[in-house]
């Protein structure tokens, strides 16, 4: 039997953390794109669009991410494709992230005063022009801190993909534990690596929020 040194454990975990980072990035960017589409449906003019996106958001916010992962894993399989774990993980995480981002961003768009809509409409702007030149530039500023804050949830959410067999930081933790019988050290290190990934994001979200509040107070 080979012996594992502390350095061996740490190196293996750090190598696996690359996949956590990559999956987080893919989910966040993909979720952002789908979330933006949902946002436009959510605040758009047609009633059925609003209902559809509201239903989608409620569904994804009201069910466990783990179940969504299982459904993606087994549901995609129904189409006769051999589903690799990474594909199911990406699909589920993108859809889940999109629901939350759309809801966060809706709050930001609605925080823009109603008069701004009316003023831009009175200038003869269409819906897309209003969004592009008046509403979004203002909403975007409000949206940055909570969006950065939510990215922490995405990083933590990727831990669940270990359950459907995607080998990232958490799964590597389980594998290394099974090989070394040192759960305390291994899971402690795994937690610290997650902390090192998430804490800068949390902190910068807080700082951004404070900075933004200062701007608000001076208005």
């Amino acid at each position, binding site marked *: 039997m080979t012996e594992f040194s502390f350095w061996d454990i740490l190196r293996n975990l750090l190598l696996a953390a690359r996949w956590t980072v990559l999956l987080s990035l893919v989910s966040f960017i993909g979720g952002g794109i789908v979330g933006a589409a949902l946002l436009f449906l959510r605040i758009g003019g047609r009633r059925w669009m609003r209902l559809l996106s509201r239903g989608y958001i409620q*569904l994804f916010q*009201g*069910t*466990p*991410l*783990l*179940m*969504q992962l*299982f*459904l993606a894993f*087994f*549901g995609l*399989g*129904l*189409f*006769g494709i051999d589903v690799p774990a990474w594909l199911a993980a990406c699909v589920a995480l993108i859809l889940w992230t999109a629901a939350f981002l759309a809801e966060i961003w809706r709050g930001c768009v609605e925080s823009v005063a109603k008069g701004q809509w009316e003023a831009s409409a009175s200038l003869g702007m269409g819906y897309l022009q209003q969004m592009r030149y008046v509403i979004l530039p203002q909403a975007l500023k409000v949206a940055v801190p909570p969006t950065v804050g939510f990215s*922490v949830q995405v990083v*933590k*959410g990727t*831990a*669940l993909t*270990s*359950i459907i067999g995607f080998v990232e930081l*958490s799964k590597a*933790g*389980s594998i290394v*534990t099974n090989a070394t019988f*040192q*759960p*305390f050290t291994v*899971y*402690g290190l*795994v*937690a610290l690596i*997650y*902390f090192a990934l*998430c*804490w800068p994001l*949390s902190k910068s979200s807080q700082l951004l929020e404070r900075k933004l509040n200062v701007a608000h107070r001076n208005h």
Partner: protein
Amino acid sequence: MTYHFDFGWLIDSLPVLLKGIRITVQLILIGAVFGVALGIACAWVRALGPKWLRPVVATYVELIRNTPFLIQLFFIFFGLPSLGIRMTELTAANLAMIVNLGAYSCEIIRAGIQATPRGQFEAGASLAMTPFQAFWHVVLVPALQRIWPALSSQIVIVMLGSAVVSQIAAEDLTFAANFIQSRNFRAFETYIVSTLIYLALAILLRQLLAGLGWMLFPRKASR
């Protein structure tokens, strides 16, 4: 796609599902009560408690909020026994949920407490209230009233997050679903059903918490 959906297994599996639902409900009830209590205690420490304890609580809150629940659960269930602390799956699951909700609710409640003007606290003291009475009546209750919606959402999030306790073999709803699908080979249908049950539980819990808030805080917010 020539896949035929089959829900015929549902009747036979009902007892297993119901047991899973019972455990999930039990986990969240215990988790919510003790988790919020822990959150209140931590919020008190951070706002008004002894100075030396504040960094300890702050570290706890930051550590929990920036690591996944799954890893906290594994650490408690697999890691702590090497320090001689052993517990059953359900106890570990409950402990993890309490510790997790404690950290999140601490931050939420602290935000509510900070919104209470300092002068109100002094006014309470001038009415000969003890510091505890002043904290309870003047600071805590209005703070809870203010942040009740955020706290309710967090409790629902913890309930949905509890799906992962099946990974340490705590026999909750997800565990029941895993068990059933390993018998009937109808994974997709089984997870659809359990997902819908979770959705119903989430909606129910949200209504319950809204009702509780309405009962606990009947007065209009006096701001």
